[in-house]
């Protein structure tokens, strides 16, 4: 430990903090700007050869577009690009808060079995043709996926409520969900026809191709409902990272906070996954990127997790079109392929270590 002579002055301490505060804002702004750029690139990339200027003209002044251009830009590319941003942000936020409340660096919607439950719900629709929610028409695969994902989180919610919501119980329940729904899914796959199997696999690989404006709208509304709540609990969530005891001593009702945040996370991931299919990895990596660059003060961590998730998915959307011109690969495949090397390099290059 250091002696008195080494203790920096008050001004030096304030200066150090101020520098970091500026860096935090700059980083969030930079991430937002890069995200804007990837969205632009995402919209101008695609099989139809449209120049950047033409796309910009059509977006700024839709009346000049030909019918073909209008369909390509307004009905196909823009909803996909926006869906990538919104769903990426939802998964980033969901992962960030799951890792926070469960005190576990591996937590994300996938680990808690929510994605597996959604996949099973989709399989019930595709293979058995059963719709859990009547009257949803063509959206019944999505509706089933949503209902099953919410059901899985409800089960976790109820068990932890009965047994006391400690993080270990929640993670173990999540893992139980994951294996249960995977096993049930295997049952359905075994009995499925080739066509159904193909459909199911396509769903499981995750795809933005089915994005429409109403779907983007629903996702955005859910994100806008949940994110402000999480932001309003910033200090409490940050305090939780110092341990339950410490958070409780500061006046945080730890159990209530965990349950409320779990409810929000469930909603985010169930909606996201039911629209775009199983996308692992984004919810895991986005918070890690935010943590490594800004630390875990939720005032920076949460916005940056959202932005990092949006950036990953938006970048993936571009890659899915650019790898083989003319073919759009399912994004679930690409997220892992481009994300993992990046992630590993981040971990190996990391100077500071947490979660030891």
């Amino acid at each position, binding site marked *: 430990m250091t002696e008195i002579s080494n203790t920096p002055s008050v001004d030096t*301490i304030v200066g150090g903090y101020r520098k970091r505060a500026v860096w935090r804002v700059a980083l969030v702004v930079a991430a937002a700007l890069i995200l804007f750029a990837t969205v632009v690139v995402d919209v101008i990339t695609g099989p139809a050869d449209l120049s950047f200027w033409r796309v910009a003209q059509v977006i700024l002044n839709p009346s000049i577009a030909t019918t073909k251009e209008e369909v390509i830009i307004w009905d196909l590319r823009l909803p996909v690009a926006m869906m990538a941003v919104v769903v990426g942000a939802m998964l980033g936020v969901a992962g960030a808060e799951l890792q926070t409340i469960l005190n576990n660096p591996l937590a994300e919607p996938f680990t808690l079995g929510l994605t597996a439950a959604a996949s099973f719900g989709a399989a019930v629709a595709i293979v058995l043709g059963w719709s859990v929610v009547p009257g949803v028409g063509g959206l019944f695969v999505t509706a089933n996926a949503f209902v099953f994902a919410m059901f899985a989180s409800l089960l976790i919610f109820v068990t932890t409520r009965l047994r006391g919501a400690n993080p270990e119980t929640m993670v173990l329940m999540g893992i139980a969900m994951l294996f249960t729904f995977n096993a049930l899914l295997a049952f359905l796959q075994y009995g499925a026809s080739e066509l159904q199997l193909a459909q199911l696999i396509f769903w499981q690989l995750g795809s933005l191709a089915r994005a429409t404006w109403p779907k983007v709208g629903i996702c955005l509304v859910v994100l806008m409902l949940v994110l402000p709540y999480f932001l309003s609990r910033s200090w409490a969530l*940050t305090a939780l990272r110092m341990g339950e005891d410490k958070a409780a001593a500061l006046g*945080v009702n730890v159990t209530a906070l965990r349950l409320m945040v779990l409810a929000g996370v469930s909603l985010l991931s169930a909606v996201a996954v039911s629209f775009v299919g199983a996308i692992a990895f984004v919810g895991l990596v986005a918070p890690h990127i935010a943590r490594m660059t800004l630390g875990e003060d939720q005032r920076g961590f949460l916005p940056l997790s959202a932005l990092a998730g949006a950036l990953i998915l938006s970048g993936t959307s571009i890659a899915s079109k650019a790898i083989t011109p003319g073919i759009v690969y399912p994004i679930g495949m690409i997220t892992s392929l481009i994300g993992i090397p990046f992630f590993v390099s981040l971990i190996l290059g990391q100077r500071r270590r*947490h979660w030891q």
Partner: protein
Amino acid sequence: MTLEVRDLNFAYGPRPVLRNAGFSPLKPGHLTALIGPNASGKSTLFRAIAGLLKATGTVTLGQTDLATLSPKARLSRVCFMPQFFAANAALTVFDVVMMARKNLSGWRATSEDVDAVAEALHSARIGHLSEAYISELSGGQAQMVSVAQALIRKSDVYLFDEPTSALDLNHQLRVLSQIRSAIAKRNAVGIVALHDLNLAARFADHLILLRQGEVLAEGTPHDILRRPEIAETYGVDIYVTTGPKEDLVVHAYSHA
């Protein structure tokens, strides 16, 4: 404001941890040391006073029965520093002290807040750690940060659960005198749970001896340390002598 604790009872399942624990009213500006062997209920007593667990009995601060306050209001009157400090988070020392200062409300840190935190880190002599992550701290450093987190809060009662257990000799003395002078300056009630009887004798005005959830004895260090209950409670032979600065020195030996 004086703190009055009477007849606290609490059990984990069938096992009683506090049995009619209570003591004479504690005066503001004075530091009390809570002593007793492992598992004698020191942490539980602190939690009961802070309202973090539901014990029966009464805790009164001045004229206010603390049971009538909301949990959050109670915790802002009674500042409790828990014993353990999870240290794997990517939070800077500055951030965590700021969090304690903001008391979980208000997003923005005003320049007053920033100055207050910097001042607290400086006076606790941990300014050089300000921008370090708490995951990078040694046990002793983390403990000093914990104390700074507690002292930056404005409360009427401060409860420190073994604030010096991970510190070297120099820092033990330093942290305890920091706590002692803060308590005196703020005219607050301070209780420190301590294992080291010499530190208790040196810094506390009043000692409370706890055994199996019961208050066995209380009084000035001079009274308490010479009582046979002390040796009996710890299961050792104890001799008290006077040190070179007219202070009490406790010598303990295990039974031969």
